[in-house]
């Protein structure tokens, strides 16, 4: 059975390797300081005690006032799963460091978080909109992106640079 590390257990592992890297902990997750993130994850990956080698899941979450990027990292030998998070508080240009230099598997997931949340990953080799097209207006998974009912209307007319489609006049047959 995989042991899911609590926030404080994960923090203890991180603190032992890179002192001063932990911001705070919750019951399930350990918040890392963004500027120490890459260094900490690399140390945790290479350390035989932590052995966090497999970046299982990476995703962004929008909490209205800030963004979080969640990293679930798995150890095969120790069979434990740790959850780390970093926060980005700048709503206009949220930015966190990219972990692609440490985990190659992060590059597509970071592209996805950039595509759907607009989170910039500093140091990413090739950050582009992986699912949507370049020039798509807005970041769809943000909470303030209008949802379909009442907000964005279906059809291409809503997108910048595309003329609104003219509806043909309805003929009334008497």
């Amino acid at each position, binding site marked *: 059975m995989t042991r899911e590390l609590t926030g404080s257990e994960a923090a203890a592992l991180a603190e032992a390797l890179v002192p001063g890297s932990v911001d705070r902990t919750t019951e*399930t*997750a350990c918040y890392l300081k963004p500027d120490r993130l890459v260094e900490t994850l690399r140390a945790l990956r290479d350390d035989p005690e932590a052995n966090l080698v497999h970046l*299982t899941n990476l995703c962004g*979450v929008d909490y209205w006032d800030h963004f979080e990027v*969640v990293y*679930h990292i798995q150890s095969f030998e120790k069979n434990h799963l740790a959850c780390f998070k970093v926060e980005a508080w700048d709503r206009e240009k949220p930015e966190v460091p990219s972990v692609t230099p440490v*985990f190659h598997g992060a590059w*597509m997931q970071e592209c996805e978080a950039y595509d759907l949340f607009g989170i910039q990953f500093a140091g990413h080799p090739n950050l582009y909109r992986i*699912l949507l097209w370049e020039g798509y207006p807005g970041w769809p998974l943000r909470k303030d992106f209008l949802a379909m009912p009442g907000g964005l209307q279906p059809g291409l007319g809503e997108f910048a640079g595309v003329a609104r489609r003219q509806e043909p006049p309805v003929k009334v047959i008497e």
Partner: protein
Amino acid sequence: MSGVIKSEPFVINIGPQHPSTHGVFRIKATVDGEKVIDAEMVMGYLHRSMEKLAEERTYTQNIPFTDRTDYLSSMSNNLGYCLAVEKLAGIEVPPRGNAIRVIMAELQRLASHCMAVGAFANDTGAWQTPVMWAFREREKILDIFEVTSGARLTCNYMRIGGVAFDLRPEFEPMVRRVLRDFPPFIDEMEGLLSGNEIFIARTKGVGVLTPEMATNASLSGPMLRGSGIAWDIRKADPYCGYEQYDFDIPIGYNGDSYDRFIVRLEEMRQSVRIIQQALDGLPGGPFRTEVPLALRPPKGEAYARIESPRGELGYYLVSDEGPSPYRFHIRPPSFINLSALKEMTVGGTVADAIVVLGSIDIVVGEIDR
């Protein structure tokens, strides 16, 4: 005339409309002669924004969405999502519900691997015969799904707290017949392909992944096991009572396309074993816990994962005590298994790129969501 032929790099598009991309997916391959020197993926043609849609709907209403991500293994997708909600809300599933879930998930693995193996043989040039054989067997499993859930492809059978309906009386004889027919079919398939000289020449040593690379690129499922890492969520982090069943994890040694194919074939044999045990010991009692339709899980977050036919399928849910999830994230195995596509294809020929893509076994509905 000198003996050197001057060649210039040339870009070819494989896909989006191409049978070997298994959907609408494009590889922009830069080639020098026949050799691939760069490969870029273009995806998103099938993006339906499921994660956004799910934030508007209740937990129960989201189950049909998960069918439509990986449409070749809808039972597994339902199961992963329901497990995540159950973890978030602390719901227990009765033993009969768990056993039915295991049977369905393993039948789905058989059906999905039939498709994977048949289509992979198609990609290597064994045109149509293996895929027709595989579809013949897959059809019998889809019939079982139809009898049980009313649908063949998008079953929508799992529910939060159990499954939607109890098994019908026809179910057990039908599954027994599949269990009887499947091992000979797997032997037949193996006899047809695994010793075939052309098949070996096309797949051995193609798309080699070292264990370090496979781990670092976050791969999972047969991709990871083909590279020699014995990692299976069913063993490492058992769910639905998988710890009660006796089965083995097949692994490959060379990490090439051939090993991934062999791993899939062997996994089918193990699935037959699991279904046999689950069916023999199918407990009675209720098949579902009663759960309110407008479920409001307590505030928090949960990450639950299962071993889907393609790899580790995870669901990350965040609840704010509302009737719909605050954040609904799918960890799609097909999408993340593509992380190492460039490393596997560069240096090979264009024909090898097709084989590599076939050996990853992608489902584009899951990549784009």
